[in-house]
């Protein structure tokens, strides 16, 4: 009875609040690669985002949410088309999602030019962090280089002398290795770029073995990572030369497909399922209960995106008209992030801690990541200085 009263009061209050302050519902556009081989990231982020909405009382910022999902097919021009549909036909208030940098680079301009806020759930390309930073763009994830920088720092701290680098030959791969080199000061004995989506690495592994490095760092996201890690172990290199990488290669969504080959591998990340803070414990437990799997870092990013939007819309009482106020609210990032402390830099990219994790088998026999230590505290990205925004 009492409960019903509270709900009733809330509804009345909300109704009043909405009529007084503009919007009656919040329309969120979610754009990601939802079909084809690269679809799993987009699905993961969306699952996290939906759970975030649920935790905010099936609302965001006190407003009922209508979620519009669009598939960019990993083609920048299709992304622009979908963004145009969301802005002009669906009339969404906020756009989020966007997994891949190339799509992000194509849609960031049109969306923010139209006066909408774009909250990246994943992609954090360097141009948007530096000179091309945008007032209405926020990355709730990371800047592409950051996670790699953390591993570079760790390898430097470990006193590694010679390092061998490998990544796919595309922008994110080059950004990644640049990030490692920014903090690793030892000798780079090899830097190899492989064809994108290359399935077999036998030839490259043979060259790697011949170079006899002290350690190896690779960046291979998704299916490429599964192939690489399996083949690295099968070639016997895993016992000879330690392999280091980032969370994108050893993410929860690919670990089971790697099997024992992934056990014991160290990687850097801004987040881990066993991170100790109340928000994260609630997120991980409820995610497992809802989707019957351990969340990936992509799901964590989606969840945080929902909470960030909730905090900003709540701070302006659902009044989406006043852009400057809403932007200030976003900049405050006043929400309980699953990664603990979270704040935005002046370029709207996060300043956050980075951790070193290790792949272990948990009590259920499922492979997962375990925290080992901290690589960076309050780490900002390398491009912020070039961003003219204050």
């Amino acid at each position, binding site marked *: 009875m009492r409960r019903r009263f509270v709900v009733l009061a809330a509804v009345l209050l909300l109704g009043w609040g909405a009529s007084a302050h503009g919007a009656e519902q919040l329309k969120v556009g979610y754009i990601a690669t939802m079909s084809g081989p690269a*679809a799993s990231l987009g699905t993961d982020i969306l699952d996290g985002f939906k759970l975030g909405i649920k935790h905010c009382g099936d609302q965001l910022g006190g407003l009922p949410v209508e979620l519009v999902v669009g598939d960019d097919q990993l083609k920048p021009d299709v992304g622009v088309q979908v963004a145009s549909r969301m802005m002009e036909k669906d009339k969404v208030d906020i756009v989020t999602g966007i997994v891949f940098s190339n799509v992000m680079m194509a849609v960031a301009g049109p969306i923010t030019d139209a006066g909408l806020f774009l909250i990246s759930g994943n992609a954090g390309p360097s141009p948007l962090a530096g000179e091309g930073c945008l007032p209405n763009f926020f990355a709730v994830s990371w800047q592409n280089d950051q996670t790699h920088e953390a591993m570079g720092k760790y390898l430097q701290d470990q006193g590694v002398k010679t390092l061998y680098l490998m990544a796919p030959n595309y922008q994110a791969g080059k950004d990644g290795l640049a990030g490692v080199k920014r903090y690793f000061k030892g000798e780079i004995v090899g830097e190899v770029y492989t064809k994108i989506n290359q399935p077999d690495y036998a030839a490259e592994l043979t060259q790697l073995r011949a170079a006899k490095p002290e350690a190896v760092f690779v960046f291979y996201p998704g299916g490429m990572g599964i192939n690489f890690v399996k083949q690295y172990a099968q070639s016997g290199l895993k016992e000879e030369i330690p392999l280091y990488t980032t969370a994108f290669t050893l993410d929860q969504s690919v670990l089971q497909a790697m099997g024992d080959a992934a056990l014991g591998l160290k990687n850097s990340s801004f987040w881990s399922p066993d991170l100790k803070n109340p928000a994260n414990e609630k997120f991980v437990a409820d995610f497992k209960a809802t989707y019957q799997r351990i969340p990936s870092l992509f799901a964590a990013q989606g969840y945080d995106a929902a909470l960030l939007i909730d905090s900003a819309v709540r701070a302006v009482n659902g009044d989406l008209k006043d852009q400057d106020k809403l932007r200030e609210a976003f900049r405050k990032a006043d929400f309980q992030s699953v990664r603990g402390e979270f704040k935005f830099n002046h370029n709207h990219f996060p300043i956050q801690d980075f951790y070193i994790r290790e792949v272990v088998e948990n009590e259920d026999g499922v492979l997962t990541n375990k925290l080992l230590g901290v690589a960076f505290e309050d780490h900002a990205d390398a491009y912020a200085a070039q961003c003219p925004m204050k």
Partner: protein
Amino acid sequence: MDPLLIFIQGLNGLQLGVMLFLMAAGLTLVFGVMNLINLAHGSLYMMGAYLAATVQQRTGSFLLAVLLAIPLTTMLGMLVEVTALRRLYKRDHLDQVLATFALILFFNELVRIVWGPQAYFMAVPELFSGYFSILPGVSYPIFRLVIIGVGLAVALLLYLIVSRTRLGMLIRAGATNREMVGALGVNIQLLYTVVFGLGAALAGLAGIMAGPILSVEVGMGESIIILTFVVIVIGGIGSIRGALIASMLVGLADTFGRVLLPPALASMVIYVLMAGVLCWRPQGLFPAYG
């Protein structure tokens, strides 16, 4: 590069070539006998890998996985042939490309619904999980040697089937003159289904062998199908001998290209090779007919 390194890279190239041959042999057979461009050949490869991975995960036995997945893929192939592709033999190549492209989309989504969007795991069988020491300090994964062995054995077997058996005779006759075979009273529809099944079995086998070293995932078929087409075109359509030689050529060119050239050029190597070969011999190296 020192000679030892060249030798190991040669093995790597050979192993890639053998995988390509398993795919190319089936594709070129179907192409040669039924005059069908089957883009969905890669989907059968993917299905082979998924089926084998599932059986292996349930039973823990790689042998059982092979024994079950090959016939299942064969039957799946025959099913597709009987229900859809059979209608396409008389159509022009373009209709075939479109229809089999549609099949790819269909199979990819089917796998995503049945097995989920995340990649699947398949382990290297216990028996072959070690390394073989070629020289002290120089080892090579046994499973990759097994792949080379299986591939060469299949090549030999196919040679025997094509040159020594009645089925082989019909295949050769079909590749040369389709109408004549039908006119001679051979049940041509059955022949087509059997040939397609054989191609599917080979694709499935390739998928099973690839499963332990690669990620079993949606889209794995597309990454190999283009390379396979490159192989059969270089080799000459319908020619198994051409497919064998071309797959070795492509395997070695790709491997050494990756090692020796900058990445932008390495990505182009096989396409340059194909354009070069076709420029020199517009019908491929061993044109089977025409």
